[in-house]
């Protein structure tokens, strides 16, 4: 079953962490807060850190490990989408969380609203572990307001045994074969909904030109005729069950499907190219516990911690040390983990659309789905 693999990974990584923790505890002696290594600046033990992240986007063991090591109590909330957490932050006027996980364009939105704190890089020594590419991302060059967590691209995830010829183009959604007609899903969130159309038409994935959007809308409407559904969250299980044979998918989530059906599920970046998306960690300006938030980010950037995250989520981290530490057997099983930063950087990065752009995109998405 779907979770069996993840569960296995979780168990293994918990075991690993417990062993590691025991080892260092035995060596260090008494208090868990007094960890060796880099200088531990402010005393954050006993404080509470409120985080919101996507569901199942980080192994439990990472949070537990951080709590044990620092004595910080982590209040771990979950959100379903970027929009979901943005709505929550907006509702609370930028308060309520210390650290949130959002995709690149939302970093810009949070920054423009004045809700994202400027990052005190001196408090995150492990920033130096980041790939050089990850410090020049279009939505936040120099990582002034965000630290990349994972990154990847969007492509077509499909069932070898069900589609006949392997797809090579986004046009697959508009010109289905008898095997894929009515058995395809596309992502439904605004930013990804128009992407196949824009890439296929040769436009920027960040366009706000009404004429281009209009064309992309027509393209997507004609693709909609051939779809089973718009689906952001369960497309890979639809592939596994055979409800769908070809879906637009984020690389890591295609791997969730592959974890269950390694023989038949494959991933391809279409010829027209795709996007570079980045999920990031943002400290909120209103946070009263920034020190703990920085400590958490720093913890995530450690190679051995990042490794457990990559092996659990099957998403790449922009962190060479992490990727080098990942078990080669896992990379062999889940080939999208082998996509290099250079290859990712060939894709266009998503950036914020601005106020009018957002309205236009949302309205277009509603028109397509209605």
């Amino acid at each position, binding site marked *: *079953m*779907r*979770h069996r693999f993840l569960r296995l990974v979780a168990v293994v990584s918990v075991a690993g962490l417990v062993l590691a923790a025991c080892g260092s505890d035995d060596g260090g002696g008494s208090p868990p807060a007094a960890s060796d290594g880099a200088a531990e600046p402010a005393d954050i033990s006993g404080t509470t850190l*409120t985080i*919101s992240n996507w*569901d*199942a986007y980080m192994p*439990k063991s990472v949070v537990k490990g951080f709590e044990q090591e620092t004595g910080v109590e982590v*209040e771990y*909330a*979950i959100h*379903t989408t970027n929009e979901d957490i943005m709505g*929550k932050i*907006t*509702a*609370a*006027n930028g*308060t*309520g*969380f210390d650290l949130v996980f959002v995709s690149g364009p939302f970093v810009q939105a949070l920054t423009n609203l004045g809700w994202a704190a400027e990052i005190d890089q001196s408090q995150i020594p492990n920033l130096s572990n980041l790939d050089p590419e990850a410090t020049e991302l279009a939505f936040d060059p120099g990582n002034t307001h965000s630290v990349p967590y994972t990154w990847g691209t969007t492509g077509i995830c499909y069932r070898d045994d069900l589609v006949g010829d392997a797809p090579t183009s986004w046009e697959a959604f508009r010109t289905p074969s008898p095997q894929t007609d009515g058995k395809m899903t596309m992502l439904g969130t605004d930013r990804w909904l128009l992407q196949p159309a824009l890439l296929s038409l040769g436009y920027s994935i960040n366009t706000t030109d009404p004429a281009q959007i209009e064309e992309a809308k027509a393209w997507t409407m004609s693709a909609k005729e051939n779809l089973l559904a718009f689906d952001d*969250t*369960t497309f*890979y*299980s639809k592939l596994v069950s055979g409800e769908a044979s070809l879906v637009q998918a984020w690389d890591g989530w295609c791997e969730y499907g592959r974890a269950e059906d390694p023989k038949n599920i494959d991933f391809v970046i279409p010829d027209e190219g795709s996007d570079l998306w980045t999920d990031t960690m943002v400290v909120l300006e209103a946070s009263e516990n920034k020190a703990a938030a920085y400590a958490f980010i720093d913890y995530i950037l450690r190679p051995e911690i990042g490794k457990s995250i990559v092996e659990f989520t099957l998403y790449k981290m922009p962190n060479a040390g992490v990727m080098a530490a990942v078990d080669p057997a896992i990379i062999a099983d889940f080939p999208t983990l082998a996509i290099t930063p250079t290859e990712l950087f060939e894709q266009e990065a998503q950036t914020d659309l601005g106020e009018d752009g957002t309205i236009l995109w949302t309205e277009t998405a509603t028109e397509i789905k209605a």
Partner: protein
Amino acid sequence: MAARRSRYLHLHMWLLFTFLYLPIVVLVVLSFNASGLPTSWGGFSLEWYRDLLSNEDLLASIKNSLIVAGYVTAISTVLGTFLAIGLQRTVRSRVLDSVLFLPAVIPDIVLAIGLLSFFNLLRFTLGIHTIVIAHVVFDMIFVAAIVRTRLGYFDRRIEEAAADLGANPVKTFLLVTLPAIMPGVVAGALVAFTLSIDEFVIAFFNSGPGSITFPIRVYSMIRFGVTPVINAVAAIVMVVSLLTMLIALRLTRPKGERSANLGVGA
């Protein structure tokens, strides 16, 4: 002629019950299915129940829901009961009734975003307390409606007699009125509890970081794929709400009374 129609009605009833209970029965059966798949039977298993018990997020959300429902039940039972008695003693007005009952009729989404805008304006932090506030708004109305039907059976002359015998209003209420309407109050409380435990839309919009309730959790589980654990959750929810409902029902009906008021009657 009449016999044929009654046969038709019989058949209709059977089909209706099939429609109503098929999905529930399927989920309950699947919750014991070792394969976890809806389409093949892999033998009897309690695996998904064990999974459920080790799912910390789910358990935390159940705890949150119980806390919310506990407060909501306490507050709305008191407010609703008072409201019912107060209304009983005021001018009977259909307009007043319908206006007061609006929170129970208005679509959840409207109430949800209205409260969200309101809390935002006042810079309330969202959390357990905001969900409680929101749930009480409509729950107390349901309690009031249920208690009121019970008050309908209550002879007010008993109260007057108590007053004549020198009991003060508080004493009269505690010793005479309350015991008489108690079954209605308890039934109202049970309904309030059930409604709060299951409420999703308003909680979804008005919850904060530490206040993910059970329905919000379930929604996220469903959104993120059809997992067999949900079946186990479903089976338990069905049994628990079934029992609560049966108890509530026993209590609203005075002995020998024929009509059952379930709090949603016209």
